[in-house]
């Protein structure tokens, strides 16, 4: 097998420098890969300038680096065209962009369909749109294991639906959404599909054309890239129909006190100086990821997740949030131990060098669905190893002893 988790780990400077760290909070933030780190450093040391229309060499280099990053993102997503890639501040910013730009075309009675498994970032913007424009939110319910209940799709996806906004994968249960039936049902009623890919892109290249979706959002920091940058991808014809969201430099045609005309996508949606160095870092991260042996990496993380599921299942008082199998699911495992509070558990785990997150994971509607206030979540990346799982399990046993 050509993949070695230990060698992969060495490509992540923080992890390489902290051999005792068992980092299992990858769904919150992935560690920065060397490729991204080096690209940002190189950019800031050799090509730093503002982009757009600079006519000196440094500015030309900055422009080229920024547009090259756009192409790298397009390649990773298999987008038809680099101009379909809009750089944003993150997933949240990208979804809010759509909620405003697409939302401006909606009115009372129009419907937006979400699922109950959405992260707050794909929930709150739509609630705010509802408050602004009186649209109706339809919430697709979940099957008992937390997967979207596609049997009830027809009931919630009405001809008044203009947009379906669903997650590509849950940040709590790891369940991967079956997008194909959703996309065809949505398109059949004339609705667009926005996918929250915040948890998906870090698990391998995505093919937005094969998925057939219209809009796709994700964050750099979860994909082993820098903080401060994210992406909204949109089909050219979908983006062209959207009005701008933020106003400012770079997104205009011409400005007079009376009237202003706007640039074509992607610039129309990139008001102000973009996160240039961060986009360059994200492009480098994705370019590097693209070349990785994903089949081996998936086998590796699935094996670790499988072991974790099995060994957790036998702990007394343990309940899972989400599917118990690994079919169509990411290596994200959320659970509770009867009588133990997630924060207390995480705090004890920290003393074992294990970094996991406890709490509602910005998915309170999903927590309510499971009837809990929070959960402990271990989320894996390809750099994780048996040693990380060993430490997590040992720490949990210690927590049960100490806190029980």
């Amino acid at each position, binding site marked *: 097998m050509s993949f070695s988790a230990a060698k992969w780990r060495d490509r992540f400077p923080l992890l390489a420098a902290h051999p005792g760290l068992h980092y299992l909070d990858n769904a919150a933030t992935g560690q920065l890969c060397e490729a991204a780190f080096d690209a940002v450093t190189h950019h800031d040391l050799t090509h730093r300038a503002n982009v757009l229309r600079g006519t000196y060499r440094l500015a030309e280099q900055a422009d080229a680096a920024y547009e090259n990053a756009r192409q790298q993102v397009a390649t990773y997503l298999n987008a038809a065209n680099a101009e379909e890639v809009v750089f944003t501040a993150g997933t949240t910013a990208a979804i809010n962009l759509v909620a405003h730009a697409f939302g401006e075309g909606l009115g009372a009675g129009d419907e937006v369909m979400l699922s109950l498994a959405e992260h707050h970032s794909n929930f709150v913007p739509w609630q705010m749109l509802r408050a602004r424009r009186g649209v109706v939110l339809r919430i697709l319910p979940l099957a008992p294991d937390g997967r979207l209940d596609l049997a009830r799709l027809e009931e919630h996806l009405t001809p008044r639906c203009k947009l379906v906004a669903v997650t590509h994968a849950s940040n709590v249960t790891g369940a991967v959404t079956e997008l194909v039936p959703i996309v065809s049902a949505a398109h059949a009623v004339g609705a667009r599909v926005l996918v929250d890919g915040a948890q998906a892109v870090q698990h391998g290249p995505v093919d937005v054309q094969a998925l057939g979706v219209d809009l796709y959002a994700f964050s750099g920091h979860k994909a082993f890239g820098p903080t401060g940058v994210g992406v909204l991808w949109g089909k050219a014809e979908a983006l062209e129909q959207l009005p701008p969201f933020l106003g400012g430099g770079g997104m205009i045609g011409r400005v007079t006190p009376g009237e202003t005309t706007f640039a074509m996508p992607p610039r129309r949606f990139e008001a102000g100086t973009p996160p240039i160095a961060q986009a360059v870092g994200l492009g480098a991260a994705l370019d590097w990821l693209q070349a990785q042996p994903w089949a081996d990496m998936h086998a590796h993380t699935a094996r670790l997740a499988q072991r974790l599921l099995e060994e957790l299942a036998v702990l007394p008082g343990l309940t899972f949030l989400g599917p118990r199998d690994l079919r169509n699911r990411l290596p994200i495992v959320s659970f509770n131990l009867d009588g133990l*509070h*997630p*924060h*207390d558990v995480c*705090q*004890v785990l920290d003393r074992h060098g294990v970094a996991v997150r*406890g*709490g*509602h994971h910005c998915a*309170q509607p999903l*927590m309510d669905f499971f009837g809990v*206030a*929070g959960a402990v979540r271990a989320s894996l990346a390809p750099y994780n190893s048996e040693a990380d799982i060993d430490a997590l399990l040992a720490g949990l046993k210690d927590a049960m002893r*100490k*806190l029980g």
Partner: protein
Amino acid sequence: MSDDLYQQALLDLAKAAHGAGTLPSPDGEALRDSPLCGDRVRMQVALEGGRIRAIAHDVKGCLLCRAAASLLGLHGAGLDAAGAGALRDRVAATLAGSEPPPGWPELKLFEPVRPHRNRHGCVLLPFETLLAALDSQTRA
């Protein structure tokens, strides 16, 4: 100072859950969420001459939060609003590094929380909910 948040005495205090339950006819009551972790504390007070005669609470929270609520159940009676406010401030100061106030020896148990700033809110939540409960009474 022990670095261990979960000393036996803290666990015992949390599990004793002094004051857990409800009051038959409270004079004041408040419900508070922790904004970021979803934990929730309900506090009820019965008053006499502006001072707390009885406290009852219901805590969905971590051990730190439960221990803090239990401590109030144990020692809260006799406080008036000003005293409860001063106590809250002293607890915050203790978490920030000051010596705990005299007369509340159990507050020493929270000293190891100092470096864990994200957990300060867990300890403070019951104290703040108590203030809100006293305030609800004033306004009723």
